[in-house]
């Protein structure tokens, strides 16, 4: 069994939600908010909300889409915003640009809806991330599997989803270590392809464990 020179360090992670001073009561105000809010706010309403609502696998992709559908009552805009896949982005700037463009285009095409009051306001928030070592590390695939099985939802989300931005790569902590740490590139790629929008964190984890087990049988 391959022993990695650098172990995988599992983290414990937790988030505070910081309430911002911006809110939107119309789609036009949402457009302005998307332009002015912090990067941390874009991150919170897209990446982080996916982790917080991982158990919703239908029609829930990000907070902007959910608000457009449920509160602004614009299903078409909601559908459009929900189609964004955060795995396509390695920077918040690019994600913000696309969100802003989509909402801006919508306002231009449907000016009659742009200033209609929504049922509830949208409040821009930010996530404050705190991580500490979990005290769990893996040098082999077996130890790695045990760690994955043991990890909390938040820890799993941190390593699998939010890591993409940290790494500035279209991959995640797990795949990066599997490929770079113990040379299992194919397994790393398969794990990276698991659809996080149509799976819960639990079903994603289960799929990952199945892929790891398949690999262990080969070794």
């Amino acid at each position, binding site marked *: 069994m391959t022993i990695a020179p650098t172990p995988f360090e599992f983290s*414990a992670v*937790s*988030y505070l939600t910081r309430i911002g001073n911006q809110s939107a009561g119309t789609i036009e105000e949402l457009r302005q908010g998307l332009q002015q809010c912090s990067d941390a706010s874009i991150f919170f309403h897209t990446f982080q909300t996916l982790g*917080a609502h991982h158990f919703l696998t239908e029609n*829930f992709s990000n907070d902007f889409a959910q608000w457009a559908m449920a509160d602004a009552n614009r299903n078409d805009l909601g559908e459009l915003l929900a189609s964004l896949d955060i795995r396509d982005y390695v920077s918040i700037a690019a994600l913000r640009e696309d969100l802003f463009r989509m909402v801006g285009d919508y306002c231009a095409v449907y000016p009659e809806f742009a200033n209609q009051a929504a049922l509830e306001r949208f409040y821009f928030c930010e996530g404050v991330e705190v991580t*500490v070592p979990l005290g769990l590390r893996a040098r082999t695939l077996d130890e790695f599997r045990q760690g994955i099985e043991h990890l*909390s*939802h938040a820890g799993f989300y941190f390593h699998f989803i939010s890591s993409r931005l940290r790494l500035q790569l279209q991959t995640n902590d797990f795949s990066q270590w599997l490929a770079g740490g113990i040379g299992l590139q194919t397994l790393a790629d398969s794990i990276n392809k698991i659809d996080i929008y149509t799976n819960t964190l639990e079903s994603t984890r289960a799929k990952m464990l199945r892929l790891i087990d398949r690999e262990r049988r080969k070794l």
Partner: protein
Amino acid sequence: METGISSRIPLEEYARLLGEGEIEELRALAKPLRGRSIEMVNSTSVGGGVAEILTRLLPLAEECGLDIKWDVMTGGEDFFEVTKAFHNALHGAPYHATARDFQVFRDYNERNRRQLPLDAEFVVIHDPQPVALIDARKKSGSRWVWRCHIDLSHPNQTVWDFLETFVARYDGSMFSSPEFARKLPIPQYLFYPAIDPLSEKNCELDAGFVSSVLTRYRIDPQRPILTQISRFDRLKDPVGVIRAYRIVKRYFDCQLVLAGGGAADDPEGAVVLKEVLRAADSDPDIKVLELPAWAPLEVNALQRASTIVIQKSLREGFGLTVSEALWKKKPVVASAVGGIPVQVIHKQTGLLAHSVEGAAYQIRFLLSHPEIAAKLGESGHQHVKENFLITQKLKRYLTLFLNLANGR
């Protein structure tokens, strides 16, 4: 006055519900805070949501190794008259505050400053009553945060202007919903209230006990049961719930249970109860149950026996009864007020309504589509598990203290 810890449920018990990983994570987050001192201060040791949450939270924090204590400020009748008036005014009720009111408030806070230790590294002050204790803050690097459990979205300006002079000196503040917050010069964090899944109000119940409660109140388990659990208070709109039920009743042979307390010791509650009984008009399928102030097992049983749980409030604080119902995997139809939309994500974890007719329609929809109702209930349960349990609350506090300790 320091408050002792009465009930203790070990963290391991929660692992059964949440998984070992979640508990391991709590312990890991607590590790850098072991032995560091925390002081919680509020104005009552019994009754009310804050005391209930602290009673549950402190033993868990202690088990994680935190040196945590809970102090209750003291005050005379004049102080609590003023703070009750402040409370109502902050919720938007008309109130003309006098210079004497502010002086009474300051005097009692000054007295408590001398009596309470207020010497912990992290001091958490709950609600407006003890907010002026911030004057006791020493320069030794202690961190003070203010936890506001009430809705400040439309406060009486005079009262808020007075309180804000104290609030602005804290290192941070916490609110139950973004809607409840103010524009402040200090960081504002979202801190949800929480339920304890192992408390009598939320624990698993034996089917025989649930059945006996239904028998006691003459509720037919064979027909759909719509339930609203709330005080007899106009802001909970019990009469509106009856109107919604009557619309639903045209299509479904259902029953309505309105269960709550508040009528025995509250003159206004007694008036509202009469209004409700009048609106019920002796309909044998409307059960108006006046429960004792603390009947957690009965509430639990009624929620578990319900087909749909309703919370048709006109105004609401956070509305934790919604989380209680969702935890029990019940489909919920609720008004989009206060903290309810945080718990009920429309069409994902429940259905929101904005009128009597809207509530009736959503109830009919769920009674017609039990598979959708079940799915909403399941998602609602997960939502509560991730966000509104006492263990999540502890995690939020640990995160806050770690964040403050890191100087942010």
